[in-house]
C-alpha cells in the first residue's frame, strides 16, 4: 500500500513538471522586438508616458517599445522579464524615470551592454537629487517641456539626417501641451488652496501646480507607495479628513491599491466627497497630453460640480 502511494506521488509530481514545461514553451519562443530591419531607430520607454513622448518626437523614424504599460499593475513592485531584456538589448535610445522607480532598467542595461546606446535618466538630466521623495516626475507640468528638446537632440545624434524633423516635432509637442497648461490655470485661479486628500503621491506634482493643498500626511502617502502599513495615527488623520469633510476632493491612485486605500474609498463615497482616480502609467487609448488634460479637468469638475471620475478605462 505504502509503495503504491509513494509511486503514485512520484508520477504525479513528474506529470506536474511536464504540464509546467508544456505551458512554459510558447512564452519562451522569441517574439517581435529584435533589432529593426527597416533602418528605424529602436527606442525604449521604461514607462509608457516616456515611450509616448519618444514616439511623438521620433514619428516615422523611430520604433518605440514601452516596458510598463499595464494600468492594472503597480510599477513600484514591477520586476523585469525576458521580453523586456530583449527590448533593452536591442534599444539605441532608452528613456527611464530614475530615483529608484525603475531600477530594474539599470540591471537590464548592465546585463546587455551595447556600445553607443543612449540612456536618458529623467531625474538626472532634470537635476532631481537621488533622495527626491516623490519619484512621479511626469506629473510635473515642467517635466515634458524640458525633456522634449533633450530627446530630440539624442534622436538627432542617432540619425543626423532627420535633425530638423525631430526638432519640429519637439516644438510641436511642447505647443500641444497648451490645453493642459490652461486646464491647470483654470483650477489654480478658481480654487486656490482647496484642500484635497490623496492615497499616494502619484499626482502630487500636478495637484501642487494646480495650487491645491494636499492635507494627507506625507508618511501615509510614502507608506502606501512603498507597500508598508501606514501607522494607525496617520490612518486616523486620513480618515478624519474624509469623515469630517475637511477636503473637497479625494485623489485615488488606481495602481497602488490595498486594504487601507479601498476602505478609504468607501469612506469618501459614504461622505459624498468626489473621487478622482489617477494612474501611474498612461491608460490605454490616451496620449500623454490627453491623459493629463483628462485628469486635470476631472479635478476641476470634482471641485466645481462634485462629480467623480473613478476610472479612466
Amino acid at each position: 500500500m505504502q509503495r503504491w502511494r509513494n509511486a503514485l506521488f512520484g508520477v504525479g509530481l513528474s506529470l506536474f513538471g511536464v504540464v509546467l514545461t508544456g505551458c512554459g514553451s510558447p512564452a519562451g519562443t522569441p517574439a517581435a522586438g529584435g533589432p529593426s530591419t527597416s533602418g528605424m531607430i529602436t527606442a525604449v520607454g521604461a514607462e509608457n508616458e516616456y515611450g509616448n513622448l519618444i514616439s511623438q518626437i521620433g514619428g516615422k523614424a523611430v520604433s518605440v517599445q514601452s516596458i510598463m504599460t499595464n494600468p492594472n499593475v503597480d510599477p513600484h513592485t514591477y520586476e523585469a522579464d525576458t521580453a523586456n531584456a530583449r527590448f533593452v538589448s536591442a534599444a539605441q535610445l532608452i528613456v527611464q524615470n530614475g530615483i529608484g522607480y525603475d531600477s530594474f532598467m539599470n540591471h537590464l542595461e548592465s546585463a546587455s551592454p551595447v556600445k553607443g546606446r543612449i540612456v536618458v535618466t529623467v531625474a538626472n538630466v532634470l537635476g532631481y537629487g537621488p533622495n527626491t521623495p516623490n519619484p512621479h516626475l511626469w506629473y510635473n507640468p515642467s517635466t515634458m517641456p524640458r525633456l522634449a528638446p533633450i530627446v530630440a537632440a539624442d534622436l538627432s545624434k542617432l540619425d543626423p539626417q532627420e535633425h530638423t524633423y525631430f526638432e519640429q516635432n519637439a516644438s510641436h509637442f511642447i505647443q500641444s501641451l497648451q490645453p493642459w497648461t490652461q486646464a491647470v490655470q483654470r483650477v489654480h485661479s478658481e480654487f486656490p488652496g482647496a484642500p484635497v486628500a490623496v492615497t499616494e503621491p502619484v499626482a502630487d506634482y500636478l495637484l501642487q501646480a494646480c495650487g491645491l493643498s494636499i492635507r494627507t500626511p506625507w508618511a501615509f502617502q510614502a507608506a502606501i507607495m512603498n507597500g508598508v502599513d501606514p501607522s494607525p495615527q496617520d490612518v486616523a488623520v486620513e480618515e478624519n479628513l474624509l469623515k469630517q469633510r475637511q477636503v473637497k476632493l479625494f485623489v485615488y491612485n488606481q495602481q497602488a491599491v490595498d486594504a487601507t486605500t479601498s476602505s478609504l474609498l468607501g469612506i469618501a463615497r459614504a461622505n459624498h466627497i468626489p473621487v478622482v482616480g489617477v494612474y501611474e502609467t498612461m491608460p490605454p487609448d490616451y496620449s500623454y497630453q490627453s491623459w493629463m488634460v483628462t485628469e486635470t479637468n476631472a479635478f476641476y469638475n470634482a471641485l466645481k460640480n462634485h462629480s467623480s471620475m473613478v476610472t479612466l478605462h
Partner: protein
Amino acid sequence: MHWFQHLIAPGFFQSTEVQVALIIGSAVAITSAVVGVFVILRGQAFLGHALGDVGSTGAAGAALVGIQAIWGFLTGGLVAGTAVDILSRRSREREVTTGVVLSAMLGLSALFIYLITQVSSTTGVTQEILFGSIFAVNRHLVVPMMGLSCVALFLIAFIYRPLLLSTISLETAQSRGVRVRLVSLIFLFAMTMAVEQSALVMGALLSTALLIGPAATAIRHTRRLGYTMLMAAGLALLDTWLGIMLAYNSFYWPPTGRGWPVSFFIVTVMVLSYILSQLIPQPQSKRAQ
C-alpha cells in the same frame, strides 16, 4: 493616572485600527497558546512552522484572485496539512514529508508572488503576507476570525481526553481503543486554524511565534495541563497587547511619524519573556509527560 497617559500614546483606545487589532490579536493569542501547548508536547513545532509558511502560498493565490488573505492562508494550510498527513503514515517519515510538501508549496508561492507584480495593482502584498499587518486587517473580518478561534478551541475541547492520552503514550491510547489517526487529523485541523489566523496577524514567517513561545514558557513553570494552558494564554495575551501598544507608541520614535511593525514587538516581548523564564528556577518535581 498621569504615568499611565505617558505610557500609552494619545488616541490609542479611540483608533479603530487599534480596536480591531486588540480584538483579533486577543483571539489569535488565546487560540495559538492553547493549541501550542499540545504542539510542543507532541513534538510538532516544525510542522507548525511549515503550516505557517505554506499558508503564504494560499495567501498569495488569494491576492491574485482578489479574495481576503485569511481564506487563502486557511486553504494553503489545510491542503498542505492534509498532504503531509496522507503521505506520512509512519511518524518517523513526518519530518521528511513535511519538508517536501513545504518546498513544493513555497515554490508555488514564488510563482504567485511574481505573478502579483505582473498582473495586479495591489501594493505591498509580499510584505503583508510574510510579516503581517494587524493594523490593516479589515474590520469585517472580526466575526469570522472569532468564529475560527471558537472552532479551533471547540475541536481541542472535543478531543481533549483522547488527544491527551495519545500525546502521552500512543500505545496506551491504541490499546484503549482511541482512534489515534482520527484524533491526530482533527488536531492537525485545529493547529492549522490557529497557525493561519496567527499568520494573518504576524505574517507567514512569524506565525509560530505565538504558538511556540508562550506555551514553551508555560510548560516550564506549571505542572497541571490546565494551568499550563491558562498561563500560556495569559502570556500570549500580555505579549500581543504589549506588542500592539509599543507599535502604536513607536509612531513617536525615530524615524518619527512612521511606526515600527507590530510583529517585531510581539516577537521581541515573547523572546524576552522566554529568556527571563529560563532564569527563574523550575518547580521541583518534573511534570509527567
